[in-house]
């Protein structure tokens, strides 16, 4: 962590994100924030609260309701020397913009041989657990991780959210920054005041243990922690790894842990087939199979759309009991 830190302040994750955005606007006149309802209203989750009043409508502005237009316009702004920070209101509404993302966002440095690059950030709330309306709870991170030239960051704590978002905005290349809706206001933590960054591509060891490695990120980190605490009560040492960023992926940290424990459980709330959990499983299979004492187990959503039915939402979205079951499964193999 690089920092010019003075004091600590207890904050929610959404407040930490707001703080990071304000600092970025303050530090770099090239930073511009835009999207649906981000200006006057301050965003549907209040992530941009107060920013337009403080920095003006030229720096923080509302756009027409059109995601391809938002991302496409941001690409043009990035080409012409600004640092665009776009908000997509929900990750489930990113899809109209996928043409811009897949066709251009990750390609510009490559196709112009670095004559142009896109220092752009796209923020989007993602994931379930808070009974949002239909189609508001998707986890499309694997689509972005599968797109060359795009980085993917998914924080799980207020402190990480602020440091990673500042790093994402300062990164010379495009970064998708997914914010777990579930964590916006449910988690509070002491966050350093002032500017600091957390480098992209460095996983965080959340809890240490010798028996099982649980690899996860974003909204699933707290679920994994609860399962780990329950297993710990039964004498099972669980090492929880928060990847923080999917691209770049810190394989060193996760492989070191799997080599130590010999067991791996991967937890995401995304659909099962072809999810990023599958990539992690493949990395472990290629790099650490001789250390494994049990098959790699994935605890994930299902190959069905995220259910809009509140009473059974937790069947789809992994909960601590399901993760604990997977931990027992690899222990008893």
């Amino acid at each position, binding site marked *: 962590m690089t920092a010019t830190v003075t004091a600590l302040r207890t904050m929610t994750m959404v407040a930490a994100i707001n703080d990071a955005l304000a600092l970025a606007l303050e530090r770099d006149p090239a930073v511009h924030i835009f999207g649906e309802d981000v200006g006057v209203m301050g965003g549907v989750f209040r992530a941009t609260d107060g920013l337009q009043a403080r920095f003006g409508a030229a720096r923080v502005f509302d756009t*027409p309701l059109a995601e391809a237009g938002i991302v496409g*316009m941001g690409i043009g702004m990035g080409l012409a020397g600004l640092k665009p920070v776009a908000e997509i209101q929900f990750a489930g509404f990113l899809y109209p913009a996928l043409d811009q993302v897949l066709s251009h966002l990750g390609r510009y440095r490559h196709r112009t041989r670095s004559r142009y690059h896109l220092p752009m950030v796209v923020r989007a709330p993602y994931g379930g657990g808070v009974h949002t309306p239909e189609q508001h709870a998707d986890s499309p991170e694997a689509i972005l991780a599968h797109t060359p030239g795009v980085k993917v960051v998914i924080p799980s704590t207020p402190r990480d959210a602020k440091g990673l978002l500042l790093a994402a905005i300062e990164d010379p290349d495009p970064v998708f920054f997914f914010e777990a809706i579930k964590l916006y206001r449910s988690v509070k933590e002491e966050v350093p005041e002032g500017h600091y960054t957390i480098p992209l591509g460095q996983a965080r060891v959340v809890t240490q243990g010798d028996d099982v490695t649980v690899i996860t990120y974003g909204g699933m980190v707290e679920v994994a922690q609860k399962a780990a605490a329950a297993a710990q009560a039964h004498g099972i040492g669980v090492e929880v790894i928060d990847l923080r960023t999917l691209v770049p992926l810190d394989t060193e940290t996760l492989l070191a842990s799997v080599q130590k424990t010999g067991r791996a459980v991967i937890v995401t709330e995304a659909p099962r087939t072809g999810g990023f959990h599958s990539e992690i499983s493949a990395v472990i299979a290629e790099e650490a199979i001789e250390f494994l004492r049990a098959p790699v187990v994935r605890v994930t959503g299902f190959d069905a759309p995220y259910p809009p039915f509140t009473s059974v939402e937790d069947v789809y979205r992994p909960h601590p009991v399901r993760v604990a079951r997977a931990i027992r499964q690899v222990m008893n193999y």
Partner: protein
Amino acid sequence: MTRSRTSKKASSPAASSAAPDPALPDPHAAGAAAYAQADAQGELFQLIAPDGTVTHPELLPDPATRLALYRQMRRVRHFDERAWVLYRTGRMGVFPPYGGMEASQVGTAAALTPQDWLFPTYRDTGAALAYGLPIPQTLAYWRTSPHGWAMPQNLKILPFYIPIATQYPHAVGAALAEARQGTRNVAMAFIGDGGSSEGDFHEALNFAGALNASCVFILQNNGWAISVPTRAQTKATNLSRRADGYGIPGVRVDGNDVLATWHVTREAVERARRGEGPTLIETVTYRIKPHTLADDPSRYRTDADNAGWDAKDPVTRLRAHLLAGGHLTEEEDAQLTREIEAEFEAALAEADAFPEPTPAEILDHVFAEPTPQLARQRAQILAEEGA
């Protein structure tokens, strides 16, 4: 906006009528007859008729400008013609020709300075050359050499856009960024009649209007989206009218009259520089040639479809005008031919000297700093393919 004297179109968004339009003739529907009818309706803004006679003497640019536009059209036509030959001899990749559309591309792109942005599509090699993209690099792009993608530092041009319509929102962002940084530079983006069906086209026009972006949107209506004629693309075949829906000016111009495209584009660029927002310019032209050099148009169109378009050729039209007016002699024209040929052959020799990329170059320029994953993949290529 200057419009033809008999235009029935609203000259500003405020004046546009909400009533449904009467059906307008589609200038591509049946070749020359419909084109003439459209002219009679006053729908196409034009300065010189196909035979070279002047229809708006008061709007002609000075002779030096007319000559400069002629030279540039001859230059980009030569590239298009040589591309055919190079393709057939294996010295060029698949190339989308634009021959016959030179007025649409030169009269528009030539209105920019190198400080302005140009977002060309794969059909707009002529526009890129007129804007200032060097011929060797242009050749390199169509021969799939990396040198064709590394755009010159002194220009604001992007590599030719392949996914249809995606460039339009980029132009909005570039124009907005220029304004935010205190310049008066504008952004020009090209699109075709097919591309105007895409969602990005509509989102960009709406964004540009709502945000007052300094954009000049060129819509080259060349009658065909590969095999689909404009009349099958949309019921609203007067594509310039789409501007009305976004509260921005729309102009329809004879796309084979370079003086008309130049005049209209200059006006739009100046308006944008003054901060008066975007313009949509529909250049009505024709794709006489195939979609690409690998395409066989006889599968989807007949000679009747193409009838009359040769007679409206933009290059011979301006040449006739310049010869008749004494601004050009046959000898000067022959000398121009020799200069253009010499320039191209020298550029071709330069392009021939560009080295082929090494295997590991496919992993260059993904990120500023390669990720550990890319570093490992690079090592793999070096081990398996050699440097």
